[in-house]
């Protein structure tokens, strides 16, 4: 885990410096009257020290299995990125398009494009799941899911 630790250690070090700096700006106060930045300044300092430890350790043990254990490896990066993208799009579009449309689209995408199922299977399963979740959450639990474009239907 040599390389991975170095990368993550540096990330947290920068994070801790940022937090400590921002907390300092918020005001540390005095010991008998600690200010809003007091706890977080010191938390930032501690995280900073710990991340330096992680970095130093990772340099110390130049790991033998580094070749075996690369972070990205042969994993399905595209699959993960595509799924994440679709989820973010879902979040951004859900209030505009409404729950029914956006859920249907998400499922058709996940089943049809990502999992490469046959289109009739993807569409029918997506329709079924969208309808079922709508009944459970909107009608059963009254979750007030966004109606979006289908506002006019009023059902």
């Amino acid at each position, binding site marked *: 885990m040599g390389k991975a630790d170095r990368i993550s250690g540096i990330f947290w070090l920068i994070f801790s410096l940022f937090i400590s700096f921002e907390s300092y700006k918020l005001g540390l106060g005095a010991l*008998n009257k600690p200010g809003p930045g007091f706890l977080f300044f010191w938390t930032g300092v501690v995280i900073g020290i710990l991340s330096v430890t992680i970095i130093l350790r990772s340099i110390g043990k130049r790991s033998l299995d580094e070749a075996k254990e690369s*972070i990205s490896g042969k994993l399905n990066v595209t699959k993960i990125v595509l799924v994440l993208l679709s989820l973010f799009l879902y979040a951004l579009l859900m209030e505009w398009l409404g729950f029914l449309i956006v859920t249907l689209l*998400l499922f058709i995408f996940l089943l049809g494009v990502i999992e490469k199922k046959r289109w009739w299977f993807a569409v029918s399963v997506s329709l079924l799941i969208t309808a079922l979740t709508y009944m459970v959450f909107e009608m059963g639990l009254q979750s007030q899911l966004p109606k979006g474009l289908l506002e006019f239907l009023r059902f």
Partner: protein
Amino acid sequence: MDVIQNVLFGFQVALQPINLIYCFLGVLIGTLVGVLPGLGPSAAIALLLPTTFKLTPVSGTIMLAGIYYGAMYGGSTTSILVNIPGEPASVVTCLDGYQMALKGRAGPALGISAFGSFIAGTFAVIALTFIGPFLANLALAFGPPEFFSLMIVGITVLTYLSSGSMIKALMMAGVGLILSGVGMDTISGKYRFTYQIQSLLDGIGVVPVAMGLFGISEVLLNLETEIKRDILTTRVRNLFPTLKDWADSIWSIIRGSVLGFFLGIIPGGGAVVASFASYAIEKKASKHPEEFGKGAIQGVAGPEAANNAAAGGAFIPLLTLGIPANPVMAILLGALMIHGLTPGPLLIRNAPDLFWGTIASMYIGNGMLIVLNLPLIPMWVKVLKVPYYLLYPLILLFCLIGAYSLENSVGDVIMMLIFGILGFLMKKFRYDGAPMILALVLGQKLETSLRRSLIMSHGDFSIFISRPISLGFLIVAVLLLVVPIITQRKKLSTLKED
């Protein structure tokens, strides 16, 4: 007898038809969640929390609690039949449970784990009935310094027990603490770390973070490694353990119950640790330790009892001190606060129906589980056959709906997705998410109690060591931090000598 009266009152609450229904729903969903790999109790409770908003706090808590201890039952089923632990507390059960199944003894393995769980769960609930009020009374004497030190112990224990590097776990606790600071500072009224982002003004909620860290990230991880499942096709017969099975395992169940219960109470401990500890003890106590790993019934009975007792014990610090013992309890704490209740020493007095009702519902729920678990095993096996390409879109959809319906805001959904990515990266880089959640939940209380203590003492830090209870807590915390360093040094020096 006060206790008996209170328990009777609790049963009055829990036996109301509506609460019975939610108790049943809770344990049913819990078992389902326990059966399904890749969806643990933390994620499930976070996901289903919004569905309880329309309920009364009592019904809501009864259902969420049911999910937690129900998951402990369900987890064993997949461990035994498929060698895949449905949730982390059942990892140990795989060792001997699956071996028993391979030898055609799946029935007794499932049976003994269900009965063991029932005995342990009941033991934990009875102990909770007696210890809970006592601890709550004790905690009434706690001032800000004691609470501060207690929370420090809780976080340290969790980092001590966390899988992987303790330094990383401590860092994650620190990050959680910082996340808890986002939003308005309750003492000065200043906004911190919000950067004019609308959804940060109210602070970062536990629930979207938990859904991201335990739900979304889990799905992302599974996307790259296909889950392989070889389901045992032999029919499960003879669920009732024989007399010999009972004789072999009754002491394991008793030991597991007691051990699990006390490990469950300790803030930071919990079901996972309890199950591992119990397995180790059973192996030591056994006259035939060589049978462990080859299908020893004690290796199933002990840990299964322990994780259920721990699940019960974990309610004690939450309900009496307001301190969650583990991530699941942290989410439950968030749930109670959303329902307008503040868990702590005053909960028994302010909301006796919630306290005693929840406890009584756990007696009932444990009974339901044993009735539910044994006959429904064939159905759970079928659930396991649901292919992952259908399961993961559903988990994702529940996460999306759950996060949105928290406050009907897209901000929470985005927050959850961001923590999903963070959680995925954390797993890749081997950082544990549990300390982060716990610190996030405790953060605000921790900060207020620290600042109140310092105001009380006019800036003198010795207030934390001049008060005996607080001193005791801090000594434990320091020991936990120092012991690993010493033992590591020793290991290093022995390595060098070799």
